[in-house]
């Protein structure tokens, strides 16, 4: 076993102490960004040398306000005067976490087979194309309509992923390049569909590439009535996580996936077709992302544009890395980043740019993915890896 393998194992296993330190450090550095560039703090710089205390006080206040706003916006709004607005934040977190969990599971599956699926965006868009096609151009009874749209989204995305796996298996083209190129192709294709009246352009629509809203029969049912946006997406995400766990930890095909990821040469020697495994693994990885596509396409209540992919394909990479590619970890990571998304508007109102959470998010995963870095910062002893 090479040094390289040990390190990757270390990344994926992730000791609780290191994860805690990574999260902590991410938030601390995020706080610094938050404070240093805040308008109120900047206003005190002129008098910094005469009264440095003021600067630090204002800075501290900004950080506290920022994180309180994040909490209020993503967990429970403590300053709300009615139960609906009090508990809406946590439901928003769940709603926004759902697609991140689904897509995160997809990327995680790739990681465990030794494939890096950077094509989340493209696969998501292809899934959206399928979901939107069914949900706006077909008349089906309630329930069935949604299920068909969901399955078509999964098939479209899965086929896109399978194509990547096929190209890798047949020609040796690296999946990173192929998926990045397919991202652009998919966006252009979707825009073309949205632009064309006979395909997906909204009825009576103008020049903007935009679809009709999904038919009422195809929309995801809401869980808690109309005052909450939460829909069955989060339940589907949990189901997907259970399926992922069973597939990867209990099924024969999952065993093959893991074996190829562990050591492709050994797997080949044991009689597993590595090429075929790549095709199926990419298809499976993309199928989870297709579920996220259905979530995006069918929980919308207005017409879709190509920006509906909301960068979930890329966020899913950080979710998978933070979650250590395990079902439970991905769910937790998805919830954390979902909370970040839910809390953003509340922070914006306070004048703290929620973009700071993007920095925190990137830093946390960076520290987790680079164990030596966090060890060097905190002078931890080198972990024993079995």
């Amino acid at each position: 076993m090479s040094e390289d393998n040990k390190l990757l194992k270390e990344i994926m296993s992730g000791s609780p102490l290191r994860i805690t330190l990574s999260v902590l450090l991410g938030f601390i550095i995020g706080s610094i960004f938050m404070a240093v560039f805040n308008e109120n703090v900047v206003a005190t710089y002129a008098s910094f040398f005469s009264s440095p205390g003021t600067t630090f006080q204002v800075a501290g206040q900004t950080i506290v306000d920022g994180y309180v706003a994040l909490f209020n916006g993503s967990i429970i709004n403590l300053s709300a005067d009615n139960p609906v607005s009090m508990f809406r934040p946590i439901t928003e977190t769940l709603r926004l976490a759902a697609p991140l969990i689904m897509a995160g599971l997809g990327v995680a599956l790739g990681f465990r087979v030794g494939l890096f699926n950077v094509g989340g965006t493209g696969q998501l868009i292809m899934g959206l194309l399928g979901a939107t096609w069914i949900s706006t151009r077909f008349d089906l009874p309630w329930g069935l309509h949604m299920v068909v749209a969901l399955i078509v989204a999964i098939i479209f995305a899965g086929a896109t992923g399978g194509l990547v796996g096929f190209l890798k298996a047949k020609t040796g083209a690296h999946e990173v390049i192929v998926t990045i190129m397919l991202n652009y192709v998919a966006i252009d294709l979707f825009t073309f569909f949205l632009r064309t009246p006979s395909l997906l352009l909204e009825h009576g629509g103008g020049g903007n590439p935009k679809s009709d809203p999904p038919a009422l029969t195809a929309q995801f049912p809401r869980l808690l009535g109309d005052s909450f946006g939460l829909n069955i997406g989060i339940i589907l995400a949990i189901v997907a996580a259970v399926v992922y766990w069973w597939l990867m930890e209990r099924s024969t095909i999952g065993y093959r996936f893991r074996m190829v990821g562990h050591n492709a040469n050994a797997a080949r020697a044991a009689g597993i077709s590595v090429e075929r495994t790549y095709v199926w693994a990419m298809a499976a990885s993309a199928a989870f992302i297709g579920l996220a596509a259905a979530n995006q396409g069918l929980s919308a209540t207005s017409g879709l544009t190509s920006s509906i992919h909301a960068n979930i394909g890329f966020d899913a990479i950080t979710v998978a890395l933070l979650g250590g590619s395990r079902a439970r970890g991905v769910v937790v990571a998805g919830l954390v980043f979902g909370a970040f998304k839910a809390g953003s508007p509340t922070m914006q109102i306070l004048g703290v740019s929620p973009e700071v959470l993007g920095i925190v998010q990137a830093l946390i995963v960076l520290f987790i993915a680079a164990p030596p870095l966090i060890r060097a910062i905190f002078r931890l002893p080198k972990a024993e890896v079995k």
Partner: protein
Amino acid sequence: MSKLEVTPGMFSNAEVRPSWKTSIVLGAFSLLVLFAFGFFGKPGDVTYNLSNKGDIFSVPDIVVASTFANIVFGSLMLAITAISVWRTIQGKRTPSWLTLIAGLIGATALLGWLAAGNTVPVSFILGSAIVLAVPIILGGLGGLMSERVGVVNIAIEGQLLTGAFMAAVVGTVTHNLWFGLIAAMVASAILSMALASLAIKYLVDQIIIGVLINVLVIGITNFLYSQWLASAGEEANFPGTFDIISIPYLSGLPIIGPALFEARITVYLTFILVPLVWFVLFRTKLGLRARAVGEHPTAADTVGINVGRTRFWWVTIGGAIAGLGGAALTIGNVGAFGREMSGGLGFIALAVVILGRWQPFYVSAAALLFGFAIILRVWANGVAPGIPTDFITMVPYLVTLIAVAGFAGKVRAPAASGQPYIKG
């Protein structure tokens, strides 16, 4: 337990025997031009505008029937296909420059088809394509230098964005664009040092670290943009651009004059850097050592080359060049920083490195293809409304896909690219 497979020839299989794929792809494109643009093309005359009014050597516009021109172009491409077929039968490879010429003819045919009944401003399109290609070329050079020594650089996007941001902000604050340019290169070089040391010293997976650096830079620049630049645009994000320098006499040449010799300093620096990187890489001892490190680090180490140090400096200097590419986006073209303004150019640069087979000149040619596609979309919307431009934009990505998958037989990455070197 999961493992990211990092294999020799990171992005494509290594094989050297000539394959039929080149001929087949060439043939398909030739027939497309001959029939879709030629025999069944759009009626109407097309005017190829070859020189500006003030040029020293004024060349008259060429007016020709669009369909006729494209039948000629299609036939020329078929002739090149025939050469390719003949060479493959003989067991020889089709030279890259021949493929490039076929591509150029195909692009001209596309222009003629789009502009039937209209004018093609050849030097304007060429010039714009070059300006748009500069960040891709420089990003590609950075990526190439890094991969040649065996470090996969996915972080080109982050390097471009860093360069663009620093050039705009430092250029504005110091009121000196040269400081902006230097700041862009230095900041991007520092970022690359982080990438290099994590990859070389701490052996963190190079692809993961590259992706995360991108995410981090996007996060930081987005935050600084919305929290600072958006409200303080005048003081922090208003650098202006470098002046356009006309080179006497040369800028008066038809077609290439206005395109190549009436440009900003960033374009000229690119013209210098491409041959320079090629020269250092293939004609100096320094370059030989670098390539040795990228192909066979153990052998390089045995003869006394410091693998880690070589990798570190090549990645760092490559990063500085990519940072210059970022500066070209702001102070070399638009004149201000915008959110995520690199918009995926870094990923395109990554593809261009492979498309150009890790050779500076071919990388630049491939980057030009993308620059051409960007300007084509803008121009085609004006001249030929109703043509689905989405498909035109798609072309370079599809070409990259075909190249990576189809031409894989001929692409060979530096053997140790992506592999950490552990002295054993």
